[in-house]
């Protein structure tokens, strides 16, 4: 099965932008669920297109859509037929995801109905180009953007520019994305062209909707050699004209849909079969088409019919497509032709009210005291007015004349009252000329970066102090990532050891001192329990966000999201017990609303890892372009330090899921990797790192003081990470830095000790619980400082003292060496070819971080060096012959 929401929100897609094209848009569902999942996965640029008639209807639910036009845009599209695609496109810098199917953005489409979806993924790391479907989808979106406001065009442009891989050579896999609709060939013609002249023997169709005369089905049947179609429908919900069914006779054989979903989950009275499928049997192959298109005339036959997006592919193998999808049961069940003959066509209005207006108002963007109007598809009569209201059912709050703006578009000059949410164009006599549209605000076109600080950054930075830093971080996270997922889990007792390991140790652990079972701590020592009790200390967000939330938000657009259902928990428990006449099993709180399930926690763990990876990558990217960067803002460095604080707090922290299973928030190795990567990027090598890009005047101001404190904490984390990586054999290194943490740490210490005096170890067991005994870090601190001294001394003089050197002719990988170009570094490889070139690690360089030299390499004698690493690590580290690129790692 395909979990669409999971695919949209798992964070692994690394998507900055989402573009959703849907026929139906259920605003509460988009706002409350889809948008939140996308946002919590870091998707900051959200665009939605939907059919205008559905859009107008949905504006009735505007009270449930507090973010529309602010954190996402919705553009209504008007077509002669229905604008019917269901496309979910995620675009990130190195990854992309495309879901095409039959499900709209509704409870049914994403949660309840029998829908079919297909997935396309792109990941730059796999080294294959993007599927052509991405290109087709993006072209489609760019066309839609032509009918959108400037703001939406900007969103689309940004989305595409943030995904440079879209321009790479495509990688085909047999699937073809087809789009039908205005200005395009009829979809059935496009499908036929894929047959390459083959004539299918028969066809199986699954469809939720048909044209009254069943012309499309007839056409499909005529295209087969047997002249018949087997059609699977849900008799109770499908709209058919019994006379047309009768007329077609045996040309169409009707079968009831037998839900292939697991039986125990089938008792759902509201389930609708909304999937669309055409399988054309060509003997040893089937041409399969799935997506948004029903087997109806507007979807398949009319050139100016519905706008549809489908995927077609050839399929062969031991199991037919119907067997694969579990539809065989439907085809084995007795036919329902006779039942359907009795059906009466519900000649209802299709609700396409938006089509009736003289013009389409696609957007109304509020800029201060004027509203930019995007009016497409129709003429605006003279003396037209813009009427703005609170909701579709309320009388206008105010009106203003619509006139041509300087740029040729339309605008209205007026101040939009705070309660106004929607606008429409009307004649001076009050006759509606356009559809309603929800206001859009410029902020939707300026999405905050994944980690941008925005206007409150300075204040937050000033407030960032040791001890309160986590609260500050989370305040900021909540403020800027409104959808930051709050994952509630119970603390799982002792933090640092895994349960099994701990239990294995029990026999050797002496008994606990009796006095530790008692305390004289009073009420003032006890925080938050009055509200959430022992659950106040859950995980990162629960433990630290909750006290801030208890302060309670001001009413406003966020009010709904501040609502907290936790207080109702005991009601639920009591009612369950009462329902069983007082019997209690201790299982009543299993559906806990505060504690996350194992699944949710694991997802949160994945997201955290993904955030840390992105965070490290962003500072590494900055380092790689440091020659072009004029300066780095203090807030950018602070951002990394905040992430470090969060990660440090969560390292090896165990939480209990609602199923009482222990979940580790963040693996110690992941934390160590992250810290070393950040430290390397901050300090760099001989040519310095990102830290050197901070404007010197910053250090004199309050920001500098705050940064100093943060760097002092990072210093401690760096020592811990070095110790950890050294003590735990790094067989699975992800970056070269993990193989030489000592060198990275020494470089980092050399860079920061002129800024901050000493590593910050205050209350370190709470802030970095994974470090265990802080005393154990002291030895590492001394060694690291000694190496830092050595690096500074040698690089200042430009050469090492004689007594510390020896010829590097016989040096082994892992040796500490000096070269005038890269300073003190590590020998990674010694090639016997190329006149014995030395491959040295250059900590100032990006990918790949190696440079080759033929001479001038001197080995340094220092305690603990050379580092011994396994052949496996060496294999990972040593650059392959094709990695060095021209101009990047030239042999000197």
């Amino acid at each position: 099965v395909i979990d669409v929401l999971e695919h949209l929100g798992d964070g692994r897609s690394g998507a900055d932008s989402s573009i959703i094209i849907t026929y139906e848009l259920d605003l509460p569902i988009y706002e409350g669920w889809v948008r939140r999942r996308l946002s919590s996965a870091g998707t900051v640029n959200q665009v939605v297109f939907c059919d205008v008639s559905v859009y107008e209807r949905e504006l009735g639910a505007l009270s449930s859509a507090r973010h529309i036009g602010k954190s996402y845009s919705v553009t209504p599209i008007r077509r002669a037929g229905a604008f019917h695609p269901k496309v979910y496109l995620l675009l990130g810098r190195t990854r992309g995801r495309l879901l095409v199917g039959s499900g709209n953005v509704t409870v049914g489409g994403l949660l309840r109905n029998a829908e079919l979806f297909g997935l396309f993924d792109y990941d730059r790391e796999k080294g294959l180009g993007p599927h052509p479907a991405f290109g087709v989808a993006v072209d489609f979106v760019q066309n839609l953007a032509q009918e959108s406001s400037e703001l939406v065009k900007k969103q689309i442009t940004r989305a595409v520019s943030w995904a440079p891989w879209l321009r790479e050579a495509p990688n085909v896999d047999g699937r073809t994305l087809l789009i039908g609709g205005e200005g395009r060939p009829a979809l059935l013609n496009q499908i036929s062209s894929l047959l390459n002249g083959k004539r299918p023997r028969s066809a199986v169709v699954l469809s939720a909707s048909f044209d009254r005369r069943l012309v499309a089905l007839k056409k499909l049947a005529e295209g087969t050699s047997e002249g018949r179609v087997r059609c699977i429908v849900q008799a109770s919900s499908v709209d058919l004209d019994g006379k047309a069914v009768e007329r077609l006779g045996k040309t169409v054989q009707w079968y009831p849909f037998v839900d292939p979903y697991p039986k125990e989950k089938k008792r759902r009275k509201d389930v609708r079969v909304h999937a669309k499928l055409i399988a054309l049997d060509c003997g040893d192959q089937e041409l399969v088409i799935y997506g948004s298109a029903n087997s109806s005339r507007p979807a398949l036959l009319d050139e100016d019919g519905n706008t549809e997006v489908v995927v077609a592919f050839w399929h062969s193998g031991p199991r037919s497509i119907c067997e694969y999808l579990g539809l065989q049961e439907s085809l084995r069940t007795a036919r329902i032709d006779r039942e359907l003959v009795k059906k009466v066509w519900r000649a209802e209005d299709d609700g396409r009210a938006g089509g009736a207006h003289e013009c389409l108002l696609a957007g109304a963007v509020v800029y201060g005291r004027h509203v930019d109007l995007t009016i497409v598809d129709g003429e605006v009569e003279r003396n037209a007015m813009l009427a703005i209201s609170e909701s579709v059912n309320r009388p206008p709050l105010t009106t203003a004349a619509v006139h041509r703006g300087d740029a040729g578009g339309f605008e209205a000059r007026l101040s939009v009252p705070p309660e106004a949410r929607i606008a429409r164009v009307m004649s001076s006599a009050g006759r509606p000329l356009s559809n309603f549209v929800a206001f859009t605000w410029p902020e939707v076109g300026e999405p905050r970066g994944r980690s941008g600080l925005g206007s409150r950054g300075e204040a937050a930075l000033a407030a960032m102090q040791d001890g309160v830093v986590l609260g500050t971080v989370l305040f900021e996270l909540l403020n800027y990532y409104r959808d930051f997922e709050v994952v509630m889990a119970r603390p799982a007792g002792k933090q640092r050891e895994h349960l099994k390991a701990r239990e294995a140790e029990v026999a050797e652990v002496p008994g606990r001192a009796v006095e530790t079972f008692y305390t004289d701590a009073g009420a003032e020592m006890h925080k938050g329990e009055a509200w959430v009790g022992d659950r106040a200390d859950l995980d990162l967000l629960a433990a630290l966000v909750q006290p801030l939330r208890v302060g309670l938000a001001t009413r406003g657009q966020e009010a709904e999201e501040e609502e907290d259902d936790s207080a109702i928990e005991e009601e639920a428990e009591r009612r369950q017990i009462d329902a069983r006449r007082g019997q209690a099993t201790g299982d009543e709180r299993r559906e806990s609303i505060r504690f996350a399930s194992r699944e949710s926690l694991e997802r949160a763990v994945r997201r955290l890892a993904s955030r840390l990876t992105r965070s490290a990558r962003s500072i590494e990217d900055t380092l790689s372009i440091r020659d072009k960067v004029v300066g780095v803002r203090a807030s950018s460095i602070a951002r990394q330090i905040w992430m470090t604080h969060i990660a440090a707090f969560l390292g090896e922290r165990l939480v209990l899921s609602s199923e009482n299973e222990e979940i580790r928030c963040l693996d110690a190795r992941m934390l160590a990797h992250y810290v070393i990567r950040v430290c390397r990027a901050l300090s760099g090598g001989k040519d310095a790192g990102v830290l050197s890009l901070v404007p010197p005047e910053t250090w004199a101001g309050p920001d500098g003081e705050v940064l100093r404190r943060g760097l002092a904490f990072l210093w401690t984390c760096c020592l811990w990470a070095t110790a950890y990586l050294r003590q735990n054999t790094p067989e699975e290194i992800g970056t070269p830095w993990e193989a030489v943490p000592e060198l990275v740490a020494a470089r980092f210490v050399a860079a920061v000790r002129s800024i901050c005096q000493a590593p910050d170890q205050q209350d370190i067991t709470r802030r970095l619980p994974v470090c265990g005994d802080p005393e154990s870090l002291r030895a590492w601190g001394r060694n690291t400082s000694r190496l830092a001294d050595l690096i500074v001394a040698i690089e200042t003089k430009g050469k090492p003292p004689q007594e510390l050197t020896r010829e590097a002719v016989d040096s082994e990988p892992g040796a500490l060496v000096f070269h005038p170009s890269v300073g003190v570094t590590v020998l990674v490889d010694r090639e016997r070819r190329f006149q014995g070139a030395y491959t040295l690690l250059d900590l100032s360089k990006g990918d790949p971080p190696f440079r080759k030299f033929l001479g001038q390499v001197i080995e340094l004698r220092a305690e603990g060096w050379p580092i011994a690493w396994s052949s496996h690590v060496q294999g990972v580290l040593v650059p392959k012959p094709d990695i060095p690129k021209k101009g990047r790692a030239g042999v000197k």
Partner: protein
Amino acid sequence: MAETRNEDLPFDWLQRDKHAIEGLDHLGIEVVSANIYGALLPGLTNVTDRARYYSFYPWVLHRYAQSAPPAPDRKAWLTWFRQLEYSYAAACAAWEMSDKTGAHATAVVGVDTARREIGRARSKVDLQALAALDASGKIPAKAYFKNPEGGLGQYYKVPLGILGLLRKDEQHRFPDRQLTLYAGRRVAESLDAQPGFSRLLDVAMSGHADISDLAKLGEKVNPSAIVAGSDEERLLRNLFLGEGDDLCQGQRGSSRQQRRVSLRLVLEFIADRKRVKGEFAQEFRWACMQVALAPGRSWKLTSELKQTALAWSAYQRNDLMNYALECLFWVALRRVDEGLFTPSEVARYVAALSRGSVKTAEKHPGTQAIGQRVSEWVAVCGGESAEALRDPMAPNSIRSWADQLERAVTKEDDAGVARWAIRVCGRLISAEESMPSSGGGLEVWGAVAKTYEVHIAALASRAARRAADVFTTFLEELVLEWVLYRHLRVATRKLAGQGVSTFKFRPEQGALLLVTDKIPIPTYTNPRLRQAHRILTDLHYLYVDETGASQITADGAAVIRKP
């Protein structure tokens, strides 16, 4: 075009909802009531029924600490704890099954299993098998209780913390709570002094017992057996009533004060009414709301108690509004079940249905068909205060109207439900205008009003803002925004936050489809009053006579007399 290989198809069925549950509070309003009663009775919950557990669990922890040497791991603690808790349940069950007069083991954790086991056993009962963890440290399927820390983990841990008996262990050791020296240990030692509990420990550690021995033990240790005048009783009384700065130093000032006043108000109510027959919680809520005890008798209270009564009144008004809106939701869902309607059509239907007249034994303008404007609706439904004083149960009192509403739900009379719900709302709005302040000065009210969108003050303010609007338009919008879309929003929030699907309907191509087989019945919340009553009874401030009526004891009367 290349072809795909079988079994590796890049498309599939949509994953449908994995965690569909019945859920509760489908409009997200009960939670407001729960927040208010939570602030009014801190330290108790709806599932902390017995006072003795406030001494029993500290004692268990104390005994574990004193056992030599206490093992520092989770498994050792849980094994110890569970064996003792299950032995306690078995003793209480055995006593109950001895058929002695008054023997009962109500609200004893694990007693259902214990009853079954004792019923099956001939003479000896195994106290280990059903309490033990499995080899991996998990709770086996047939265990006496699913929560690893039994009733402590499931019900009492947080309340014991609020009363200052336990504190969270900052070192994250097992057990994860420490006993406070000033309260927890003192209470635990008060059980140490009782031979029954020493015997209980012996029995639990031996792992088995004779049923007759257990019954004798149960008589001594069961939750109703707190000895009058004992240290245990004195300490628990003082903890609940917030008496004694040293003992109560672990309690926050505000929660100590609020619980004290609420419990005194409960005692005052029962004392003033002499005998309270029927369901105590119900009587108390209505008395607070109407500040009236009985026909012709207003309820005279000191200013401190009056403020708390007004806070309870705010709770009751909010809960009643919630009930009325849940009733409108119920009507709307039944309409959805009848066919395919858009949200607006459903709202229009409910609005139209609600306007019609209703009948009561006495004439009242509110029973007539509702007029054109919102202001008319509120005006005709008003007039409670004088009437309540005359007779809180008069045919047109709000309590009677609420009863009519409940009856209409029971009879599945959709029109009656819609009409009475709207009248109850009208009466509440009208009452809200005359209340001194919505929360009776309760701090939590301000926070709740800021955080939650739908509550009684918001309803009143909405009606005031739209006083000149057409009533049916107002009501249509109310049903759309506060009932239909509100449900979608609340269910979506639960889906996003908790991963559970509680949708009762869903839009499909513009129309609403019923998702559930069972339309949720409107409910009131349980404001911890039942538990407060039982705890006060366990502590001998109240007693329940043979007819089931509650009366105050001499000790209870003394508490009220105290300044």
